[in-house]
């Protein structure tokens, strides 16, 4: 990633303009042809710096208002297999293994999104049945203090 790439990311990370040629203004700012703007975005995607280029959706506005972080205590030797099963659920948007501690021994995290809390609970129950992991806790978000994307 060079300086131009960095500038390009800074110019687009808050969203491109909804105009017929949204990359024109960016190309002018960077003093490169419009086609190069697109080539650079594609290269940044290929190298994994940009995960995807597209719309971020305000899912709460779409009625998907229940959001639970489900934490699971999974034996270390089953993490790989159980993580893959959890990731396969459509209601699970993110699934990670994280460091665990004696005072907090949950190691798998699945973010569950649905229209209601009950739907989240059902999904967690289904995951539990599918994986045989019964030591889990659903932590609903009671308040959103902040939500932005990753910025540079």
């Amino acid at each position, binding site marked *: 990633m060079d300086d131009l790439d960095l500038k390009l990311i800074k110019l687009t990370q808050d969203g491109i303009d909804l105009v017929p040629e949204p990359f024109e203004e960016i190309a002018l700012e960077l003093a490169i042809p419009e086609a190069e703007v697109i080539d650079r975005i594609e290269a940044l995607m290929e190298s*994994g710096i940009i995960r995807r280029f597209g719309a971020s959706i305000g899912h709460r506005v779409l009625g998907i208002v229940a959001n639970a972080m489900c934490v699971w205590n999974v034996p270390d030797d089953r993490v790989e297999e159980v993580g893959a099963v959890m990731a396969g659920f459509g209601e699970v948007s993110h699934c990670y293994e994280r460091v665990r501690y004696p005072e907090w021994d949950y190691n798998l995290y699945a973010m569950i999104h649905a229209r209601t809390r009950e739907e989240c609970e059902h999904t967690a129950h289904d995951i539990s049945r599918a994986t045989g992991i019964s030591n889990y806790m659903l932590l609903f978000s009671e*308040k959103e*203090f902040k*939500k932005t994307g*990753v910025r540079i």
Partner: protein
Amino acid sequence: MTQELELELDDTDRQLINLIQLDFPLDLRPFHALGDQIGISEQEVIEHLKRLTDIGVIRRIGPILNTKGIGGSSTLIAMQVPEDAIDSVASWINGFDEVSHNYLRPGAYNIWFTVSASSKERLHEMIGEIKAFGYPFLELPVTRLFKIGVKFEV
């Protein structure tokens, strides 16, 4: 924020929302390309997307960055904060540009926030500041990734 809005989405809105999350065309005239795909004009696409942005269905159209890809370092922090200090602590945490998500959740660890710092050093520096704030917390970095990113079907 959790207030539910009565939204009226037509078929075009739905098609566009489903398309532009993962398959936004990287084209000199992307809205023209989208219009071609679903059989409407460029101007109509733009009008629909503007309305969807105004009502908050679309937050933005742009790059979704990978913290690791940009040389950064990220973690999740769970903090134990007494009830009467929650709002002030949450706003102090929000003051860091590097905090991307911050939620109140039930339990002893009640404030949960993610940090995406520009480097390992910056992350350590922030953890130091968070420590100095004096509330017990757990640092929970990712050790394995199974799924990231979503597409909401509407």
